[in-house]
């Protein structure tokens, strides 16, 4: 699974960091960093984070790679 955060929309509410702290991280007070490749054991948490994001900025999905050959 891959994620991408639309940081154009993200307002730094950090809901995702609380709910999946191994995947999302605040850099300083306001800037969000995240690991785009979600480890399997974090998937549940990442889904919670995506549901909780107040501006729905987190997209969770399969990468294209499988079909892209």
């Amino acid at each position, binding site marked *: 699974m891959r994620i991408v955060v639309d940081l154009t929309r993200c307002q*730094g509410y950090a809901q995702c960091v609380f709910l999946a702290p191994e995947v999302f991280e605040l*850099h*300083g007070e*306001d800037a969000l960093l995240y690991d*785009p490749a979600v480890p399997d054991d974090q998937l549940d948490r990442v889904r919670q984070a995506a549901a909780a994001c107040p501006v729905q900025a987190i997209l969770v999905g399969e990468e294209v790679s499988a079909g892209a050959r």
Partner: protein
Amino acid sequence: MPGDLREGRIVIIGASLAGLRAAETLREEGFTGPLTMVGDEPHPPYDRPPLSKQVLLGKASASATELPTRRDPEAQWRLGVRATGLDPVGKRVLLADGDSLPYDRLLIATGTRARPWPNPEEAALDGVFTLRTSDDADGLAERLAAGPRRVLVIGAGFTGSEIASACRERGIEVTVAERGPAPLVGALGGTLAKLAAGLQRAHGVDLRCGVTVTALHGNGRFTGADLSDGSHIDADVCVVAMGAVRNTEWLADSGLAAGARGVACDAGCRAFNMYGIVTDDIFVAGDAARFPHPLFEYQMLSLEHWGNAVAQAEVAAHNMVNPGPLRRPHLAVPVFWSSQFGLNIKSVGVPTFSDQVVIAQGSLDERRLVMVYGYRGRVTAAVTVNMAKWLEYYERLIETAAPFPPAPGAADRATAAAVPVPSDVPDPKVLSHGPTVALTGYLPDRRLTMVRPV
């Protein structure tokens, strides 16, 4: 009629952010015909912003930034193949492998590439990088992990500044050489550029402004560079961050209005031909596009913004499968973000389209503020530093052409700082880095001819 547009052959050139989001939107809008995605990189679509942030910090691997999809675009993928030409009469795209692809409608999403160091021999030295692709990032991240003595970054735009930030966070010595008077000045103007300069120095960056790099040295391996002020920098890694070049050369003989500033299109993303006549089967989106924006006096904007690539791709795709009256304009207010030195910088509107700025909230000292940009008495842009939650208020001011300076009343507006000062956006030509937002008309305060419809 509408039924027809949902069929036929669509080809998308450029298999990155704009291309992928357009492909998904086409399917979401009910397009059922064959769809081909052509990309010259061997990789499936991936995300670039992490390349100068998470990846250089060693927090994510360059190969892990593939973009997730909203849905399967059900496309035929032609990756690792470059489009070399376009025959708009025969409606075919020519590919480097000799193949040619027929299309009924075409989307151009070929984006940009890093502007290379002008001297090819010097550029070929081992240890000299640009940063645009995941392969670039992979190579650079590996060098940073090896602990170089010093990194030289040429150009202090957003990308250069983010690279410098990542180096410092990893404890690597870094020199930044910038031709302009300060980092980010081309994108954000004088006041925030001063903040950026202070920030870089506070984080231990050896920042050299008002200088150019005159030569890169090395014997196969990069060892250092000469600066125009006569000084010399010893370093093992050099990153050339001098802005981007639009990937439009392959369209040179196509008869389209394609050039160094991108492919010109109308507000509905339809490409213009070189006579300024709009086509109806060729669309453009993302970094490759150059489009008129009513909020900025219909000047043609070329943006290198992630959010613009997504929004414009969605509009282009919608318009590719919908007839005239149902088509939409691409009117999104430009939004950009950058994170560096622990700060979250976001901008909305076009900061370079300004003559004055004012600090509307917060303060420079706290490095938490909102800077509002005005042009001839109306709000045209705002930049937040660690105050992203307020951005949408200013977006609304821009959309409604609200008067500048913005109405008082914010609880955290310091009265002392609430005096507008000149925005100090220099002529882009004096900068090493291209500004991220380029008004491809003239800068407004030069008072040159401007088309004013209505």
